[in-house]
């Protein structure tokens, strides 16, 4: 019954699954992002306080969410690899890092452009913005540490440890708007009970969130295949795999 789980630890199986999954992830994400953008930018009514500027949420919130999700995936995969010695975890972690870092930049840039008309400033040293910036530095640290070792396996394990140490930042980012008086608005969607947004604004946002996650899945699969090849270069199955 659990064979599908055990097979996930096998590099050639993962290589094949990732190849098959990529077009599905990509096409579904295009649909979700397409709907989200059109419904959000065109059909959702303007916000009472922020006017049309609120529409930035449709790119800002999914980017920020993905920046945290990718980091958590990276730390989790690294932890699994470190504790149970399932090497594919290191490949997943290595593949996730640049994706997550790019979306952290996107979150910071879109947030900055949103802050200018709303708060009057491109930047503020408030807890959420600061912890998101720290997240970017954490990504950079992990990505710098991995290649610094002569033996690649050692680099993987060191990077995994570092990403686990840094994962404490993720709940800080999320709860910063609860724990401190922050300029940044509170949680819009992730509340038990009725969300604060009306449906016409909410559905495109949820669709964008889903679309970005699916996109992350697609890009992760592509990168993962590269990472698996880099780590398994000497293996026999690679010869047949790269001919395809």
């Amino acid at each position, binding site marked *: 019954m659990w064979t599908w789980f055990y097979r996930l630890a096998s590099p050639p199986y993962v290589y094949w699954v990732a190849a098959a999954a990529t077009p599905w992830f990509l096409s579904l994400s295009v649909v979700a992002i397409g709907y989200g953008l059109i419904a959000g930018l065109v059909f959702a009514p303007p916000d009472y306080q922020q006017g049309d500027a609120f529409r930035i949420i449709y790119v800002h919130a999914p980017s920020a969410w993905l920046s945290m999700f990718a980091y958590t995936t990276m730390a989790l995969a690294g932890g699994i690899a470190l504790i149970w010695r399932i090497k594919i975890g290191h490949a997943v972690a290595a593949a996730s890092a640049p994706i997550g870092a790019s979306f952290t930049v996107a979150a910071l840039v879109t947030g900055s452009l949103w802050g200018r008309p709303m708060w009057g400033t491109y930047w503020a040293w408030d807890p959420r913005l*600061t912890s998101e910036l*720290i997240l970017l*530095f*954490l990504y*950079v*640290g992990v990505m*710098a*540490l991995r290649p*610094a*070792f002569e033996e690649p396996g*050692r680099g993987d*394990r*060191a990077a995994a*440890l*570092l990403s*686990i*140490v*840094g994962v404490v*930042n993720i709940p*800080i980012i999320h709860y910063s708007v609860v724990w401190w008086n922050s300029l940044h608005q509170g949680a819009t969607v992730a509340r038990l009970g009725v969300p604060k947004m009306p449906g016409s604004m909410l559905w495109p946002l949820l669709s964008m969130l889903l679309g970005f996650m699916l996109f992350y899945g697609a890009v992760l699969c592509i990168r993962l295949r590269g990472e698996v090849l880099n780590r398994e270069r000497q293996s026999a199955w690679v010869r047949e795999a790269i001919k395809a």
Partner: protein
Amino acid sequence: MSVGAWSAFVLVLRRELCLSFRRPDQLIQPLMFFLIVTTLFPLGLSVQLSLLREMAPGVLWVAALLASLLSLDALFKSDAEDGTLEQLVLSGQGLYVIVLAKTLAHWLVSGAALVLVSPVVGTALAVPLSAFPTMMSSLGLGTLALSWLGAIGAGLTVGLKRGNVLISLIVLPLAMPLLIFGAGATDRAISGTSPVGALYLLAALCVLTCTLAPFAAAAALRITLE
């Protein structure tokens, strides 16, 4: 002859302190760096006392952070070079205890020294006398936590060629909350409001780091040495 955890702790602590005091120049350098860097800010920004007082917490803290980072590289390096580190890992004593002792010794000769020197620097930056206790206790707690965090970074980068820059890249993002609360506490003491809240948070961060970081640092050492 088997050695208990406490005896091992004391032995390693004493060894580290002995070795450190044999190289007094290595003790003085981070202190001098601290003094010089704090001098740079008034020279570069402004010599007006009121302005100095406002930037004093930040300047003190950034300088202390950088000075501590300078000496972190040496935490495991000399032991790694002559093979002592591997012997310690193999010794059968919990690596947690050994890391705890080494890091405490490192703090005693670097962070604690910074705290003792801070009144001098504080006076130069026009910090009022009433703020000194907060300044010194926040620096003490902060540098202590920083030594533990730095041990993780040092453990991960032992033996790497350009380990120094990498340690800073790894440790500084983790140290930012310390900076925020430590400088915040000193800032409040200078302006007259109560720093107690920030100090409690800083102390909590310190306790959290002191208890958990040695695990991570020990794991890091095992990764880099195995």
